[in-house]
């Protein structure tokens, strides 16, 4: 492109911009503006033509000029916002041409970035709503996005708006349908039945997108289906066949579909879904086969018997890549559903011949160690591993082997004593890997402490599986993800998105997500709590909770069992608990959540921990009985000091009180 850089061309363009004839010719005018605008040294010549352009008779010129304002503003960098220009742009929202209107919104959004973007007040919102039908699909999607930040004054107005928006849920463009659905979800955040109704109505368009010819669109739709399923598990259950994989689909779509199938399974379709997944387990692609097996493992948490049956049959295929994943699935399953232990133990013999990789070996060895007393040939299988320990390449397998053999020795000493001695000897004397050696020495010293002591440590009661890990919470309320609907968040997945947005420069993420503030049920909570902490805590002087106290669940459990209850109190509480809100609020005052029941679980429990600057630990149990409207709080303290305990209780009380107030 010759006009870049050359001095003569710049001069030529300057002349052209001042030429009234050029300005009259809209095509050339547009081209000149578009190209000149990023060049250094001509900016002072642009301003006047752009302002003239805003009042041009041709809508085409106005479109270019409106966006030109934003370009000009961004070029000047941190220049002040020109009030007259902003007013002019606001008045152009009434322009006849629909594209000019949308461009005005975009331009204002960029110019007013520092102040939170374009303001949508009642007249503007209703004006935009009335013009919606004149816009093309891109304009509609964009305006729906801008409308997100409008808060209707009254319920009546809210439902008027929803009525106006109704027709866009039937649009043929997926972007418009999803944009409208999101606006519905956000506006009706206090009306769960409206939200459910909207989700029912977008089901058709979403399913159509899921079987669309465009794979990329299909993928985006599947991600959103998963998002909806997190809140409404039964939502797509009768359409489960739509999520069966076909042979020619790319890998990433198949994986998403398997995940969806996992989540929509219910009593009616479980048979068919499992049969379908079973077919995938023998797929040519090993990755896909393993994903399918893990999926069956997930379903097994609810439909244990059928799934264990299928998994056991898979072992008979004697394929390495299948057996290793099945054994890993068994390991996780035995912990979550102890009732299937018998069946798993029956299936295990013979597996060892078909496992070569580290993960699979670890899982098998763990199972043999923990449930060895029910598997007749467990010692002999472990003996093979001990024999070959010299050629074993993975240190993790050796460590697992040490622990497992020690466990098995405690339940079946006669058969294991000899090889345990050999293994310990090898690990301590010959092993090169430090971690394995240390583990060997540890086991050795543990045995020196006596068999009873070793038993107490290794075979102590395991943690309660009904207390799910925090990241594994099911059934999130619709409002927790409504703001993420129709954005990139579901497409990346929430976990990956958190990583992405954390690593992003702060100057990027601020202005680009202006609508988050308008949403979030827990939004006002954080600043409020911040203030409280700022005022209360330094005054009391006695208690300073350390922000980065990270206890592991195991350590917590151990400490909890070893301490006496220092304080017990009953706080008033109404209705159900939102674990997310709860956790966030506690984090603000530096109380860490160790574990928490799912929302709606009865009785609802939570375990919290905190540490003050002297190193004193506060361990707390919250218990919510369904019948009484009270929350029972029991606190244990690692060092008995009444005054810090009292201030800790007052902090906890404030938090729980605030959350309670928010809900009601």
């Amino acid at each position, binding site marked *: 492109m010759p006009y870049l850089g050359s001095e003569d061309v710049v001069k030529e363009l300057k002349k052209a911009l001042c030429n009234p004839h050029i300005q009259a010719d809209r095509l050339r005018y547009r081209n000149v503006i578009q190209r000149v605008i990023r060049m250094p040294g001509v900016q002072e010549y642009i301003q006047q033509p752009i302002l003239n352009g805003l009042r041009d008779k041709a809508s085409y010129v106005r479109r270019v000029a409106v966006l030109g304002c934003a370009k000009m503003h961004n070029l000047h960098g941190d220049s002040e916002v020109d009030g007259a220009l902003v007013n002019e742009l606001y008045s152009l929202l009434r322009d006849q041409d629909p*594209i000019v209107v949308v461009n005005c919104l*975009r331009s204002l959004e960029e110019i007013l970035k520092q102040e939170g973007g374009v303001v949508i007040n009642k007249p503007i919102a209703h004006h935009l709503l009335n013009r919606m039908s004149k816009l093309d699909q*891109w304009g509609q999607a964009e305006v729906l*996005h801008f409308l997100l930040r409008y808060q209707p004054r009254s319920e009546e107005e809210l439902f008027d708006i929803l009525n106006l928006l109704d027709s866009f849920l039937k649009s043929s463009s997926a*972007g418009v349908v999803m944009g409208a659905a999101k606006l519905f979800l956000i506006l009706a955040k206090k009306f769960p039945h409206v939200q459910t109704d909207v989700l029912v109505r977008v089901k058709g368009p979403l399913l159509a997108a899921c079987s669309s010819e465009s*794979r990329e669109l299909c993928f985006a739709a599947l991600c959103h289906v998963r998002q909806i399923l997190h809140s409404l598990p039964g939502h797509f259950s009768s359409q489960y066949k739509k999520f069966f994989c076909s*042979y020619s689909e790319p890998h990433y779509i198949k994986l*998403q579909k398997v995940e969806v199938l996992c989540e929509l399974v219910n009593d009616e379709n479980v048979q068919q879904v499992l049969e379908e997944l079973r077919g995938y387990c023998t797929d040519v692609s090993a990755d896909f086969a393993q994903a399918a097996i893990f999926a069956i493992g997930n379903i097994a948490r609810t439909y244990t018997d059928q799934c264990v049956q299928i998994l056991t049959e898979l072992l008979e295929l004697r*394929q390495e890549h299948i057996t290793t994943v099945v054994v890993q699935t068994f390991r996780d399953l035995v912990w979550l559903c102890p009732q299937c232990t018998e069946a798993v133990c029956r299936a295990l013999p013979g597996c060892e011949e078909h496992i070569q990789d580290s993960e699979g070996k670890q899982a098998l060895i763990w199972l043999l160690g923990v449930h060895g007393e029910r598997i007749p040939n467990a010692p002999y299988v472990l003996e093979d591993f001990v024999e070959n320990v010299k050629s074993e390449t993975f240190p993790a397998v050796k460590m697992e082997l040490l622990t497992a053999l020690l466990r098995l020795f405690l339940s079946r000493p006669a058969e294991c004593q000899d090889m345990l001695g050999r293994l310990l000897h090898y690990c301590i004397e010959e092993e090169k890997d430090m971690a394995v050696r240390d583990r060997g020495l540890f086991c050795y010293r543990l045995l020196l402490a006596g068999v009873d002591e070793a038993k107490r440590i290794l075979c102590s009661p395991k943690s309660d599986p009904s207390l799910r890990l925090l990241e594994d919470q099911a059934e999130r309320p619709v409002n927790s993800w409504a703001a993420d609907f129709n*954005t990139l968040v579901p497409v990346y997945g929430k976990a990956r998105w958190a990583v992405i947005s954390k690593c992003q420069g702060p100057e990027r993420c601020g202005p680009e997500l202006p609508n988050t503030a308008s949403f979030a049920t827990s939004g006002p909570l954080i600043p409020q709590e911040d203030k409280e902490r700022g005022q209360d805590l330094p005054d009391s002087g006695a208690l300073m909770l350390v922000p980065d106290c990270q206890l592991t669940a195991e350590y917590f459990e151990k400490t909890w069992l070893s301490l006496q209850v220092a304080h017990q109190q009953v706080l008033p509480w109404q209705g159900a608990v939102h674990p997310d809100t709860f956790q966030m609020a506690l984090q603000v005052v530096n109380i860490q959540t160790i574990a928490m029941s799912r929302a709606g679980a009865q009785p609802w429990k939570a375990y919290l921990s905190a540490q003050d600057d002297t190193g004193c630990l506060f361990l707390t149990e919250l218990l919510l009985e369904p019948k009484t409207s009270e929350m029972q709080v029991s606190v244990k303290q690692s060092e008995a000091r009444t005054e810090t305990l009292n201030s800790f209780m007052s902090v906890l009380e404030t938090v729980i009180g605030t959350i309670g107030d928010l809900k009601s």
Partner: protein
Amino acid sequence: MISQFFILSSKGDPLIYKDFRGDSGGRDVAELFYRKLTGLPGDESPVVMVTARGGHHDGRHFIHIRHSGLYLVATTWANISPFSLLELLSRVATLLGDYCGSLCEATISRNVALVYELLDEVLDYGYVQTTATEMLRNFIQTEAVVSKPFSLFDLSSVGLFGAETQQSKVAPSSAASRPVLSSRSDQSQKNEVFLDVVERLSVLIASNGSLLKVDVQGEIRLKSFLPSGSEMRIGLTEEFCVGKSELRGYGPGIRVDEVSFHSSVQLDEFESHRILRLQPPQGELTVMRYQLSDDLPSPLPFRLFPSVQWDRGSGRLQVYLKLRCDLPPKSQALNVRLHLPLPRGVVSLSQELSSPEQKAELGEGALHWDLPRVQGGSQLSGLFQMDVPSLPGPPGHGTPTSASPLGLGPASLSFELPRHTCSGLQVRFLRLSCRPCGNTNPHKWVRHLSHSSAYVIRI
């Protein structure tokens, strides 16, 4: 908003690069995209990717679609709607196809100037301005460079313009792959309308022959070379009904589950006479989309009856496939291809096929059986014998069993059914009420086609 847009060839060469906002570093972004795409771990999806610099995500998102072997990529810093952006990319692909004739590496590199001009009009500062053909045509000056001169009489290979069938044998006809804005002088040639009813069939049949899933995705597509503003009426089968409850007429109706129409379609005669009225812009347009699942009015086009004999002792695998075509006798299926994955380590193949024009071969761990033409009501068979020396299996004695070994199947069929729609939907008429433009009558081409999207039979 979009920061950059670029088109890469299937090998990763940048064909088109456009920076809309000047906020992100140069052309090497296109290269970065391709490097990321090829080095992606298996469990991540390529559709949306984020750039990383020095171990940190700098928050630039790549969103792309693959279209006719090309990558159309947009980058953005904002957390935007994936649906809108993906739709925009598809629309741009369609527009480029409309203006350049067809979308492929060769046409893009021949028409670089035209493509840049189009992008300038479609997007300004990264914001969509318009994608309507009739608005764009006022501003586009460059003429498309077409490789072959167009001849109306070259109708021997009239195929479908949009349908991406598995077989490349159905090449788009030269008539339909003409650019919308071909030279303005030859007005007479422009008076053409193509109306295609295309259905994609996905079927899953269990090993016992029971039907697990039937899904029909249908589209009525229009490509018009008529001057914009001329009205047309499309009459569909009168018995056509939507939803489960509605029933029309006395016969077995032609039923679909869901229908959506393009926003320019006027539906005032749809309820009473099943007539769609519209004023199509020049170029390609999807008039109507519909879906139908589970209840198919006609029998499935193909049934497969496999029988497997497997002698583990000698490692001999014998597969006998009988394929029955249940189309009406006058119809036929073209380019039928059966794909049967085989266990690992298959070494030799001997075959006995029921007619000479068929072909079977081994390739990429699967058996391919090609049947160029299958007449409705006919039945074809093939007997395949293979040696599988390394096949592990359940402990057995060396006797032949009928249990299929691991890695065999499922069979998938791909085919085309010209002049046939699985839902039974037909276009009754296509009437143009156009103002007399030129003295020739417009040519109207109405075509029906079904093709397989996934036709899987478990064994």
